């Protein structure tokens, strides 16, 4: 029988993403508050605590419950990645950095997460894979579309912003 991944895999993935964020925000420390890398480290330690609690209550918590609270943690990590991307693009107006971050961090982490979650849903015969696949595909399509638009005409965002200011 092929081994399946446990729901706690998403906590492990989320923990690693928080650690990645911690190191990257440390490298870009002049663009972020000084304490931010440590905040991400604390978030990663919380993930470790999450795993410990899951281990102790493995027999009590159902797989459905375990999946959702583990998935929620991963979602928080992904939201942080996207939030940093948005911060680069909007408040700091660092377009090159925002594009680089989207291409090397945001997009790959979201795709990896969608892959593992849909794989978990398929292997566990869960009832959500179809919906998840559709949502994942929509997110991927929107991201690719926006990225392609910005890549082909880099001045599209400043133009849009200027248009809003005129109004």
């Amino acid at each position, binding site marked *: 029988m092929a081994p399946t991944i446990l729901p706690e895999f998403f906590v492990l993935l989320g923990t690693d993403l928080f*650690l990645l964020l911690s190191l990257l925000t*440390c490298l870009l420390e002049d663009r972020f508050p000084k304490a931010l890398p440590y905040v991400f480290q604390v978030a990663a330690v919380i*993930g470790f605590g999450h795993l410990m609690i899951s281990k102790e209550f493995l027999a009590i918590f159902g797989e459905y419950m375990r999946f959702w609270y583990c998935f929620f943690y991963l979602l928080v990590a992904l939201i942080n990645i996207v939030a940093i991307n948005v911060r680069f693009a909007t408040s700091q107006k660092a377009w090159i950095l925002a594009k680089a971050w989207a291409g090397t961090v945001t997009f790959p982490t979201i795709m990896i997460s969608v892959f593992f979650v849909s794989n978990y849903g398929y292997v566990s015969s869960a009832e959500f894979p179809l919906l998840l696949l559709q949502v994942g595909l929509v997110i991927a399509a929107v991201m690719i579309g926006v990225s392609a638009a910005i890549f082909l005409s880099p001045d599209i965002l400043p133009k849009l912003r200027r248009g809003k200011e005129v109004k």
Partner: protein
Amino acid sequence: MELKKILSNRSTKFLTLLLTSMLIATASAAMYNYMFMNGTIGVEGMTLEWQLGADNATAGTQIAGVTASLTTLKGPPNGTRVYTDPVRLKNKGSGAVIFDLLIDTVSGNTVNMSSIIVRLYSLNTTAYIENVTVWSGGAKGSDHPNLNIPLNHIWRFEWEIKWKSTAVISDSVIVNLKVRVPA
């Protein structure tokens, strides 16, 4: 003051964070690995799930983990009673499962019991699977090893109970069936 200066140094800060990151990542991975081994054992045991059938109320079906108990298997004296669908078994794992069907206990008014035969049918294909003798000739039947249930298939357990002429209307037996997935 000195500590602040050290921490403000970017490379020292990065190195510190890198070391703590490696520590947290290693500890988390070790914890997951430990859980994976524990969890796999638990999950394998529960890939087969007993489910209540359409006749669960009349047969008094009770499910507790790997054991399904049929607590009110009644029948007329010198007659046969068939429970078409008191309990089902579902494979909710990730592939076909080979399991052993164990006749755990047969208790109650077994003195007046002639025989208990269980016939297994697939609800997915309606095919007949196996004949299991639970009770015959005053003795418990033998276990049935190596039954192969495909992924997501549900098997219906049909019970045929024959009572002796000495049986009275209040007679009943309790049968416990267990499933065991070999390691």
